[in-house]
Every structure is written in C-alpha cells, then in structure tokens.
C-alpha cells in the first residue's frame, strides 16, 4: 500500500500562466475505496483549477461529512480548507465568504450531507445566492457509514447494503429543487464523463453567484451493483446530454462562427464566455422554464439529464444584494470602521 505519491511528474507537462504545475494542485493520496467516483471528481477539480490559472492560495475548499466531504484532502493541498460538521458546510461558506469575498469558494458535499441532514442549510445558501460552487458527489447512499440509502436514492433502486430490498421512497431531485429555489447556475454531470464535467466546473467556478453541480458519482463499494440506478453501467446506459459546453477564457476569441439554431454563447460577468452546442430541442439554458420542462420530460422517459441546465449570467450575489463595500470585510481596519468622535456626535445628536 502506498501512502505517498512519488514526487515525479511527467517531464513534458507545462506550467500554467501563474507558474504552477498540475502536480501543485493535487492533494494527498486518496484513501477512498479504489474506483470511487469521488476520486474522478477530485481529479477534474485539479484539472479545472490548473486550467483556470487559479493560484492555490486564492481558493478555499469547504465540506461537511462523508466520503465525498473527505475529498478536499485529496486535491489542492496548498489551498485553504474547512471540514465542517455534517451538513453545515453552507454556513461556514457563508461566514467565510462574508469575511473575505476575494477568495474562490468551492464547497464539496454528498447526497447525505446535502439532501438529509444539511437540507435546511442547502436551501438557504441557494436563496442567498452566495458566490460559490457547490458540488454534490451524488451516489445515492451514505458511503461513509456503509451505504445506507440516501434521500437521492431512486424509487426502486437496489443497493448492496439494502439486503436486496429496493428503495420504497421517491427520490429528492436536487437539481429540480435548486431550480425551484432560483439558483443562478444549475448543472448535472457524471463522474465518469470528465469531458463534460471539466468545462462545467470551469464555468461554475467563473460564475458570479451560487453555482450548483449535481455529479452522479458511483459508490463502487455499496452502490455499484445491478439494480442500482447510480451504478457506472446504469448511468452510462441512461445518460442523456443537453449539449456540449466549451469554456472560453476572456483573453481567447471565439473563432468559429456559430449556428444560431444550435449554438449559444453566454458571457459571464468577468467576460469569460461559455459556448454551448445544444443537442436538445426547445431548450434555452437562460430560460428556466424550458430547462424545467426538459428535466420533467427526461425523468418521465427514465433518462438522466446532464449538462448545464440553467444559468442566469446577470445574477447578483449576496455581496451585491447586501451592497457591501469593495474591500473584503476582514481587511477593513479600525480606521475604516470607526468614523471618529465628531461623526459619532452627529449620529448621537440625531437621537436626542
């Protein structure tokens, strides 16, 4: 068993624009089960941060409890991190973000951490449109506590720990819920499709406001059996793709002419662009109602709809809503906060 990764990396791989190698974005060697979907998501996070030229110390990774919530140990070793109590990552993220809006916030959670114990926190962080990326590594079970069904386990799905019994309850669809709550960026993907997940992650991390990605991420140990709707094979056989996404950094021009009917270019607040080539008809990612129709339809057909479902590129995040000052609150000095005796005197006079 290896406890450390060799320090060698591929000699031909280049440094990114801020001077880092991809290895600089990696973390400790994973202790998750071999083949766990969560590891693929970690690897995609590493790739996304490397490609987005994020300086590791400009990012904060936050999580709750669960195998999924353990993953921040396995990526971005040089970033800030916080493992919160079960389901409480959104409050920590809110506090941190309020204190320092200059960091990039990446929240990692599980379906148990989010859809059960953390549900209350989840809906409110959406409502606040906190500027963060929120990933749910969704395996339909409580992996860390030996695979009990979670609230996202589909009706009729069979897991290993259920002793052959199928799930008797209807699943909570986190994507549908996020849309209902007016989340400003909503996407779904699959840990086994990095080609789709990578640009989605990059777009989410560049979005101003709350960006939610539900990533189906098979638990190889407790929920990768036949009969499970969160198994590699089942997902591959039932996946449906809305469109393919291209993330275009602001310094790059869009070179190809795009077809108005099937292509859509969305400009984000910082002038980066995402270009979508739509595979689905009657759907516009900036039109919430068309996205919701698509979701309902695919569910009816027994498909797992993936891709960027909805985005509001003009959304206002919590700081904009609250109209906070430009300087991060944690950097405000006493001189900034204390207006001086004479001003205080004027204020006091107002109350007399």
């Amino acid at each position: 068993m290896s406890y450390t990764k060799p320090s060698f990396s591929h000699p031909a791989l280049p440094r990114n624009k801020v001077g880092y190698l991809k290895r600089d974005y990696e973390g400790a060697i994973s202790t998750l089960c071999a083949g766990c979907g969560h590891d693929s998501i970690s690897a995609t996070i590493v790739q996304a941060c490397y490609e987005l030229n994020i300086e590791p110390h400009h990012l904060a990774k936050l999580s709750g409890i669960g195998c999924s919530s353990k993953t921040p140990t396995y990526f971005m070793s040089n970033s800030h991190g916080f493992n919160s109590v079960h389901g409480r990552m959104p409050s920590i993220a809110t506090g941190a973000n309020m204190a320092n809006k200059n960091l990039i916030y990446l929240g990692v959670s599980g379906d148990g951490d989010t859809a059960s114990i953390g549900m209350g926190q989840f809906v409110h962080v959406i409502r606040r449109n906190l500027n963060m990326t929120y990933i749910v590594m969704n395996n339909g079970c409580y992996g860390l506590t030996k695979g009990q069904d979670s609230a996202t386990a589909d009706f009729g799905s069979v897991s290993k720990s259920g002793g052959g019994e199928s799930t008797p309850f209807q699943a909570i669809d986190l994507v549908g819920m996020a849309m209902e709550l007016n989340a400003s960026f909503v996407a779904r993907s699959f840990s086994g499709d990095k080609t789709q997940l990578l640009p989605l992650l990059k777009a989410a991390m560049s979005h101003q406001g709350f960006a939610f990605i539900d990533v189906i991420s098979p638990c190889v140990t407790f929920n990768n059996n036949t009969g499970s709707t969160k198994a590699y094979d089942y997902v591959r056989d039932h996946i449906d793709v809305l469109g393919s996404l291209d993330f275009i950094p602001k310094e790059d021009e869009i070179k190809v002419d795009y077809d108005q009917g099937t292509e859509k270019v969305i400009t984000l607040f910082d002038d980066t662009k995402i270009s979508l080539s739509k595979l689905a008809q009657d759907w516009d990612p900036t039109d919430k109602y068309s996205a919701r129709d698509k979701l309902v339809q695919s569910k009816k057909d027994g498909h797992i709809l993936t891709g960027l479902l909805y985005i509001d590129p003009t959304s206002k995040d919590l700081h904009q809503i609250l109209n906070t000052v430009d300087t991060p609150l944690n950097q405000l000095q006493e001189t900034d906060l204390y207006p001086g005796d004479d001003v205080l005197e004027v204020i006091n006079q107002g109350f007399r």
Partner: protein
Amino acid sequence: MSIYGHNIWLIKNYMQYLFAFFKSTSMKPTNIKDPEYLHKVVDCQYACPAHTPVPEYIRLIAEKKYTEAYMINWDSNVFPGILGRTCDRPCEPACRRGRLEEEPVAICRLKRVAADHKGEVKHLMPQVPLVKNGKKIALIGGGPASLTVARDLAPLGYEIDLYDEWSGGGGMMRTQIPSFRLPIEVLEEEVNYILDMGITTHFNHFVDSMKDMLTKGYDAIFVGTGAPKGRNLNIPGRVEADAHVHIGIEWLAGVAFEHIKSVGKKVIVLGGGNTAMDCCRTSKRIGAEVVNVVVRSPFKNMKASPWEIEDALREDIIIQNNMPPKEFIMEDGKLKGVLFSKVRAEYDKNGKRSLVPTGEPDVLIEADEVIIAIGQDNSFPWIEKDIGLELGKWDLPVLNKTTYQSTLPQVFFGGDAAFGPENVITAVAQAHQAAISIDLYLSGKDLVKDRPSPYVNLVSQKMGIHEWMYDSQVVDDIRYQVPHEEKTKSLADRKVEVELGFDEIAGFKEAQRCLNCDAQTIFTANRCIECDACMDVCPTRCISFVPNGEEEDLRQRLSAPADNLTQDLYVSETLATQRVMVKDEDVCLHCGLCAERCPTAAWDMQMFFYNVTKAHTGCETVTV
C-alpha cells in the same frame, strides 16, 4: 449496449470510434504475450547487449543477496567484477530514471557491489562432466569472446583448446585495460573461473595459419582474435620520429607486461577515444609530467565515454580540441614536438561535419614521446585466401548475423573479430550466440530454426489487497557518487585502483533508486469498469481512455503528449464505451498506484523475468 434513442453520449463516443475506424487503421491491441514487448519496457535490460536482468540483480543487492546478484550477472555477462568496473554501460543512457531526472541509476557500479561483496560462488557455477561428449573445439584468441564460448560449452562436455599469443587469458582486458581501472586480481579471478573448467590453454602461441588449424581434427573453430591492429598516422616526420612514437594499443600492452616501465616527461596522446584516455592516464603514472591529449574534433564529439574524460581531467591531463596533427618536428635527431593546425567544425544542412581551417597559425606542442591512439582495425593475415573462408569489406569475415557462422560451416566468429571493435559486453553477447550455434551445429540441428527462445516468466506481485511483493515506493535520491582513491596515491602507482566502489550502505541507497521496470503493468480489458481511477492517480500521466486511432494521432490525444517515439503505447481491446485504454510506457514509474487504485484488479503488477538462453542452460522455455 444500446446505442438507440436519447443515448447521445454513447452515440458520440461510438461515432468517434467508427470515424477513427474508417478513417484509418486504429491501433491494434498490444500483444502482451509477446515477451519482446515487455522486454522493451525494461529499458536497461533491453539496451544491454547481453540482456542482463538488471532490475532483478539490483533488487537482490538491496536485499544484501550479493552472491545471488553476482550469479544473475555471471550467467548473462560472464565478467561481473570486470564489467562492474569497465563496462561501456549502454544500459545507463537507456535507463528510465534518466528520462525523469538528471541521472540514471548507477547500474554498472552496482554490478561491482555484487562482485565486491559476494560470498563463495564457484559451487554455484555449472559443473563440467567428467565424461566428455567426444567433440573437440578450438578457440583462437583468449579474450572475453573466446572465454564466453568456453564457459558456455565446457559444461556440455566439449573438449576445448584455447590459443592466445600472450602469456595469460583475458585478451584486451589484460593487455589494454589498465590496472588502475581493472586490478589484475579481479581479472584473474573471473578468467580463472572459466579456465578451471578444464580448458586446455595454449598461451604464448600465435596462430599463424588457419589452414593448419583446419587439419588438426577440431569439430568446430571459434575465432575470437579481436581487432588487434592499432592504426598508424602517416604524416611528415613519422619515420624520422619513430623511436619516440608508439601505437597506443601496443604501448599499453607493453606497459601491462612491464616491457615498458617509463615514459618521457612531456607526452602527447593523439586521439579522443577511450584508448587515448587510457594512454594519457597511464603516462601520468609512469613518469610523464605534462600530458597533452590532442584531438582533431570538437570536445563534444570526442568518442571517449564522458566518465573517462572526467577522470582524465581530474588527473590534470590537458585536452586540446580542433587541432589535427600536421608534422612530427625533429631537432638534433631528437623529437621536439608535433605541429598542429587549427580548425573549426562546420555542419552542412544534413548535419554532416567538416573540419575547416580557421587560418590561425599552426601550433607546436613540445613532446618527448607521442602515443597514437586513433583507432584499431581487424587483421587476419593468418587466414589464407584459398580455404573457402570469405573475408569481405574492411577485411571482416562474411558472417550470418544471427548465427555468427562463417562461409566455412565449422568456423564461427565473435567479439571484435566479427564485426569490428566494440567492447567487452558486446563480445560476450555475440559469443553466447556463437556458442549456441556451435552446439546446434555439432548436434546436427538447424542453426536458425532450432535456436532456443529466451526464458520468460511473469508472476503477479499481489500479496494483499494493496500489497506488492516488490518495493514499489519511488525514492527521490539523486545518483550517489562512487568514492575515489586520493589522487596523489593513485598517480604514484599504476596498479592502484582509482575507483573504490560503493560500500554496502551507498550500494543499498543507489539500488533503491531503481524503478523496477520489470514490475510490469498488465491490463485486463474485460475487468475494467472505466472508473478512471488509474488514470487519475498516475503521477506521470501514463494512462488514458480515449477513442482509438492511428498511432501518430493517438500519441497527441493522451493525458500527456507521448512524444518519445522509441517507447511503445500499450493499447487495450475496445472497452464498453467504445474507447481503448492507452498507456504510454515512456515515463511509467512502475509504482503500482494504478493497480492499487483499480477496484476490479483490471491492472495487476506482474514481475517479468527475461533471460537469454545460453548454450549451457539448454532450451528451457516457459510460456507466459
């Protein structure tokens, strides 16, 4: 798998696959059962002319099993103690580690560790039968080539006569390689292991007629006479200066046999190869105070091994480049020095070099003696032209490249005598093959069709869920330096060995640098669930899952560009998503992480053992 309906993701992949398929020839799945594929992955062993199982002996050294490590070497290269000091080490530039950091593993000096620290080995060597098989073989020349043939054939009961013009065995290892690089005791020990196998030696016997040899009743004759003629330099003044001018290899032999005990105070050595390095360093030890090595070509083009040049420079030898010799200058019947012109190297658009005069004035370098070390040639004045043994270009024998058989079916060649001057390890490798041919020939078998295949074995290293039988951890240590004898001490006596060799601790640490390239990553496609875990964990980005394609195109679509074309791509059968697994062998660390992270054991680490079959080991073959 369904490709209907809304299953667009699958269709996308499938279309890419079909496209790739029709567009061109996609890569075929790698045949992992072909031992040559896996052999090539073990870079050092593949590059070694005798294909010594390097990582196997390095692991044994790390376990302090020096005797076993020695025997692995002895079986392949016959002279581990000699080669551990003097080998040209083609394995080291090939070593994988050199593609990941500055320096390769010190493969050669580790061989010496095995030789220096081994226990009793003689009883482990093949025994010679008391009852002979009735066939008689003559070996002409007593160098590494002939000695290897003797070692491979004596255990089979052949009666062997060995002829050499000098007073002891070893060939150029005795006459040329100086004692400060190879102590005489080390040479004698390993030569005697062979001569003690009941070889009848005819020393001080120069064979002057092949015709005669053919009438002596030998069933086969092996010619291992080397390339014994040193090149001369015919420039003005050469004849007049003759008393002060020597041919390098003759001079070195003279020193080795102590006919020559001293040299003048000012010496010029002409030439830039390893012989020149041995001549200049020897001069320094027998009386020269100023030694100039003068080379026609630029420093970077010098033929000598970098480490030999380094050692010479450390001994205050002056190396002057871009100076072709013009004339020996005499004064009062004595040599004054050599006149050199000055040139610079120019390259045409094909990279072909020419040396162009710079126009600067000629330079006179003073010298009492000059040693010419500008190359050797083969020379067979003793092989008559009318006996049916054909000599071709450059007077080299016409040979079958696989069997080393000459146009006279009972006469075989090997070593420097076969294809021109090379080195000890090449001589050994060729001689193993010649020995097999002689055995097949005298058993009435076909020399090509009946050649034995290599012995190969492949064993899973799985011990527990994530435990391997080999030490898979990769260490960061940089190459350890071999300690040297104090300069004043080694320059005072030509028999004092310069290099001291690694002690056990340094040997262990250096051994740990080896990546165990023979611990092969073996992929079983139908077990793979395409979870990507292996691809994600691989520290050097060797693994990719991509739609198949032509090799050239595929090489650019992997996790990291696979630009080293000398290294193969390991391609799997088509997987469930219509992609293939592609592993670029180039910088795999053999760390086993891919196999540790694989949930289905689609990857396994398997120890690959490959050993060239020698005549005396017979034709054991184990299929994978």
